[in-house]
């Protein structure tokens, strides 16, 4: 148990040398590789965290974008719905307008057709009336009817205003006589009445002629002036357009 100073000093030196050896060949390399691994792990963790953060950011960005898309989609859908509604309304309005036009055209055509039909019916009615009246008057014609017509005309001539009477008088000034046309030969009394009326109105004598076309009645011709009251002229008047109104 004695102390050997040589051993003591050499052990001190030996240990210090061993400290250097183990520091350089054991602790430093091992700690270095552990530090490298730790750094690598920390780098990996940092990269993972960064990737996670990036992924989270991307996720939130895409979620935000998806929300924006949803909003844009809903807005676009609403706009499209409004546009479709407007187009539908416009189409409906156009269709309605077309239908109204068509309806108006149809109504117009129908009215026109009705009017034409009415006109045709009226013309037929008139024609039938004329035929019926002509047939009736043809059966009723005779000197009595004509005498009544003549007397009615003479009565009307007496009520003419003075200006007309003057005008008739002036028109017959250059004539020799006033021509009287009848369907039947008038009696003497009737002739006398006619002569008096003509003399009173025109101031001229009369010449008589028979005209069967009058059916029954009288025509007084004074130059350009003609005064007629006959069944033929009345029937012609019925035949003429506008008489129904």
């Amino acid at each position: 148990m004695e102390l050997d100073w040589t051993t003591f000093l050499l052990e001190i030196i030996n240990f210090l040398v061993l400290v250097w050896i183990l520091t350089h060949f054991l602790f430093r390399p091992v700690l270095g590789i552990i530090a490298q691994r730790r750094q690598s792990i920390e780098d990996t963790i940092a990269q993972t965290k960064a990737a996670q953060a990036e992924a989270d950011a991307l996720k939130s960005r895409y979620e935000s974008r998806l929300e924006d898309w949803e909003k844009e989609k809903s807005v676009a859908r609403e706009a499209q719905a409004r546009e479709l509604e407007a187009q539908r309304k416009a189409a409906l309005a156009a269709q309605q307008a077309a239908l109204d036009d068509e309806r108006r055209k149809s109504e117009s055509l129908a009215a026109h057709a009705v009017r034409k039909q009415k006109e045709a019916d009226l013309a037929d009615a008139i024609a039938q009336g004329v035929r019926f009246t002509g047939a009736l008057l043809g059966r009723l014609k005779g000197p009595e009817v004509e005498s009544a017509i003549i007397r009615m005309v003479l009565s009307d001539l007496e009520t003419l205003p003075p200006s007309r009477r003057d005008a008739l008088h002036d028109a017959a000034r250059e004539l020799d006589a006033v021509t009287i046309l009848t369907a039947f030969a008038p009696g003497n009394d009737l002739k006398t009445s006619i002569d008096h009326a003509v003399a009173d109105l025109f101031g001229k004598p009369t010449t008589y002629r028979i005209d069967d076309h009058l059916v029954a009645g009288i025509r007084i011709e004074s130059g350009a002036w003609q005064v007629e009251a006959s069944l033929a002229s009345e029937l012609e008047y019925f035949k003429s357009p506008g008489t129904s109104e």
Partner: protein
Amino acid sequence: MFGEHWIAIGPVSLSETVLTTWCVMAILAIAASIMTRRLKIHPSTGQAALEAIVSMIEDAIVAVAPDHAKLLLPFVGTFWVFLVIANLVGLVPGLHSPTGDLSATAAFAILVFFASHWFGIRDQGLANYLKHYLTPSPLLLPFHIISEITRTVALSVRLFGNIMSLEMAALLILFVAGFLVPVPILMLHIIEALVQAYIFGMLALIYIAGGLQSQALHSRNEEEDE
């Protein structure tokens, strides 16, 4: 038997302890060089075991002196690694543990003694470091000095006594009882070698850490008093 001079080189005679220490150093240097030659990020089984040993040493130091682990690791770690091997060398027939020689354990204790002061002065400066010998009262300075001496002596004698006594006991049993009878004692030797290496290294760490943290502890106490 311990500390016998085997080789004399001029006036310097080398003892068995020194030669065994050199052998242990050579083995450790070669093994460390081989094992750390091809370290990889993805470790093999051997590398993982080596890293586990170094990490355990580092963790033990961090637990005691967390701020100075890198500084203390080479010194304290070398103690643990060397003492484990040196204590176990005695199991090899014909060889004796270097730690069974008081000259060697005294050398290690002296190293711890100077290391604790060296690291303390290095960390805090000479004046600040020496202040802690005067706290809490200058009257305690002799006791501090006695404590420094006795703990160093105890450190060397504890390791020497345990290892030497184990080898002596095994030798005596071998002489008295015969071959293979000392085997249980040798099993105990393994455990004792590991325990003594751990105790020596841990005490060295605690002494050094005490030197490092004494002034800091004193400053903290003063701040708390204020």
